[in-house]
């Protein structure tokens, strides 16, 4: 009964086109944001920041980016790990070369660098489709990681190829380095995610988003009504890579602070982010967040539940955790192949009618 849109009239196309046309949704999201921005920083500690929330934010950002490419434009990519590496190394090079450059600008520039690289590796998509493209993007994954491992310039000629983030302040708050407070790093990453989540939503609900979806749903028809596949696909690669690059930058600067390319950005990253996209819901901004949340939180949850509550040995717990994760993925796919976003939608539809379904 609480969730009714009766009596809310749309007075123009403006309100009809807004992201949350239903008033209750707006309240809910405002409340949620208030908790995320105000309440969480008050109670956050190192564990929550480093093991739960930062991973969540960083992966949500990467998932958002990949969802633009896979979910909206229909181009499957397995190069995410490599593109995240580009973002990370770009921010490292920029921040060590220009120590006074604001970290926000560093990250945005890193995103731009990644976008350029993404466009380059997106070129084959003009000819190659489907799983062939997916496997072809692995070329980017392996090549980029090899490159950053091989060319010493990228890691400032240190002995091992490992990069470490120096401490940096933004608006007087220490954001990176070990002394940064969990609240500051969290808010910094959260800021990025809120802004770019909104930006993503704006892009996909406008002309460019429709262009991408047209290419995804029927590329030939799209071309016949004037969408240029070249522009559509490459812009999707660019925007997607920008997000992934910023995510890689955040991964390195605020979350990890030190990474080694062969491990931090290996192929598992690429798969992981793709799982998040699919399980969250292809072509859904909300789904990107839900997918990232599921795959970040579920293992921690299962682990803590088994180890701390049931007292299972750490190793057995790990095996069970992997198995359960697989079972859950299959289970959710069977229940709703279109991911959590669709489940959420169905739930909302039900709620809209509750408690009088007829």
């Amino acid at each position: 009964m609480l969730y009714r849109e009766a009596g809310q009239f749309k007075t123009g196309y403006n309100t009809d086109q807004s992201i949350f046309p239903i008033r209750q949704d707006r309240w809910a999201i405002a409340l949620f944001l208030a908790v995320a921005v105000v309440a969480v920083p008050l109670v956050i500690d190192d564990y929550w920041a480093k093991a739960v929330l930062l991973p969540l934010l960083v992966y949500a950002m990467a998932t958002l980016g990949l969802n633009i490419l896979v979910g909206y434009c229909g181009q499957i990519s397995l190069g995410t790990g490599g593109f995240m590496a580009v973002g990370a190394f770009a921010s490292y090079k920029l921040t060590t070369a220009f120590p006074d450059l604001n970290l926000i600008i560093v990250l945005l520039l890193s995103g731009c660098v990644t976008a350029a690289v993404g466009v380059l590796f997106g070129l084959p998509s003009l000819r190659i489709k489907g799983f062939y493209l997916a496997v072809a993007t692995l070329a980017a994954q392996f090549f980029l990681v090899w490159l950053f491992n091989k060319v010493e310039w990228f890691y400032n000629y240190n002995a091992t190829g490992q990069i470490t983030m120096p401490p940096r302040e933004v608006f007087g708050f220490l954001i990176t380095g070990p002394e940064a407070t969990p609240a500051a790093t969290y808010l910094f990453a959260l800021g990025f995610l809120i802004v770019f989540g909104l930006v993503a939503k704006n892009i996909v609900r406008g002309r460019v988003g429709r262009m991408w979806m047209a290419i995804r749903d029927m590329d030939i028809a799209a071309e016949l009504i004037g969408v240029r596949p070249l522009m559509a696909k490459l812009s999707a690669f660019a925007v997607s890579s920008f997000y992934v690059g910023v995510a890689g930058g955040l991964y390195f600067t605020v979350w990890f602070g030190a990474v080694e390319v062969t491990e931090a950005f290996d192929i598992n990253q690429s798969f992981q982010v793709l799982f998040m996209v699919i399980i969250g819901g292809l072509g859904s901004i909300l789904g990107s967040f839900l997918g990232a949340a599921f795959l970040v939180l579920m293992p921690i949850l299962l682990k803590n539940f088994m180890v701390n509550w049931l007292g299972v040995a750490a190793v057995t717990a790990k095996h069970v955790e992997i198995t359960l994760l697989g079972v859950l993925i299959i289970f959710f796919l069977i229940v709703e192949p279109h991911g959590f976003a669709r489940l959420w939608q169905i739930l909302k539809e039900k709620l809209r009618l509750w408690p009088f379904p007829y």
Partner: protein
Amino acid sequence: MMFRKITLAIAVAAIAVPMAAATAPAAELTIPSLAYRTGPYAPNGIPFANGYADYWNLLNERDGGIEGSKIKVVECETAYNTKQGVECYENTKGEGAGALVYQPLSTGITYQLIPKASSDQIPVFSMGYGRTSAANGKVFDWIFNFPATYWDGATTIVQYIAEQEGGMDKLKGKKLALVYHNSAYGKEPIRTLEVMAEKFGYNLLLLPVDHPGQEQKATWLQVRKERPDWVMMWGWGVMNQVAVKEAASIRYPMDRFIGIWWSGSENDVLPAGDAANGYLSAAVHAPGADFGVHKDIMKFLYDKDKGAGERDRVGEVLYNRGLVAAMWTSEAIRTAMKIHGTNEPTAAQVRDGFENLKVDEARLAELGLKGFTYGIEISCENHSGPGKAAIQQWDAKAKQWRIISKYYDRLPEITGPLIEEDSAAYAKENNITPRSCN
């Protein structure tokens, strides 16, 4: 709706558990063990974790802990994955009265914890791995990497080679190949080997192998073509097994093929069978279960079904590695107790224990480890100990490793400047002012 609320409640509760645990009072010494019993490197992680756990449990069972304080080992599974390692670190650091020391085990996790643990003021004992320049205690206050670093390993292996060739001057013109895991870990020795190549006049051939390293055909075809006089290896996991097998297949003389101490366990040679006979590796401690402490472990743990692993695998190389790591750590804690006059030392006090750690031959004998390893002494500026290593050889018939050389000293004139340079670069990049040690 109800269902969702319950799930949410469980979710919050389960994630919140470590926080709740943090507030529980405890009089125990909390030692986290970042084990990796799953994932691609599990075969190596299992024996180490068992050795580590067994030694702590032995102290509890036999001595009632360290100076009366019981030890609580909190094992956390990392799967050798940095992300999970960080989760484990954050999860366990507040456990009990606070974690006393971390043994991160993976290179990635170590690099991760170097700044983090330093700021949290918890010592990190990356025993024979991790960042070599952490040897410089002036820059890396909280990191310890004794008894030897990779650079020490490189200099000792080259000394062994020189000795076989008939002296350092005989290295001139020789061809040495390095087969390495193409990662931070594998790249560690390259600079040292290059500096030595310049000084001693040997030629260095670099052959990287990408993770995971199941397919090394090209690498070994190059070895066949270049015919190096010696092959050194910085390998890890399946890469070791395949390399040993390939080397045997191309009939490279196994007694001229030397791995670092992470490329010299039973796991690495057993799959190759007889062909692995004669393979060499560096070692910082002895293999085998013939020491006093092993007898105690049998008596107090395995006979009472309290062992962490399988009985017949006690004494494997990596088991002993875990054991010696626990031993040095426990001695550091003991030292800390002595210095600060408490039986509940804090992590910061344990660090002082590490900086004043002295485990000489006599103490080793007292611990039931006579001849197990060499004596060490750690100081404020030197966190890497004496940096000695011996060479051990695999006997495929007996299925046993045997130490076949003396413990070589490192070449400080080679490693010293490199450590100085690398740690200075780190200090500069991270705005660290090296402390004074006087």
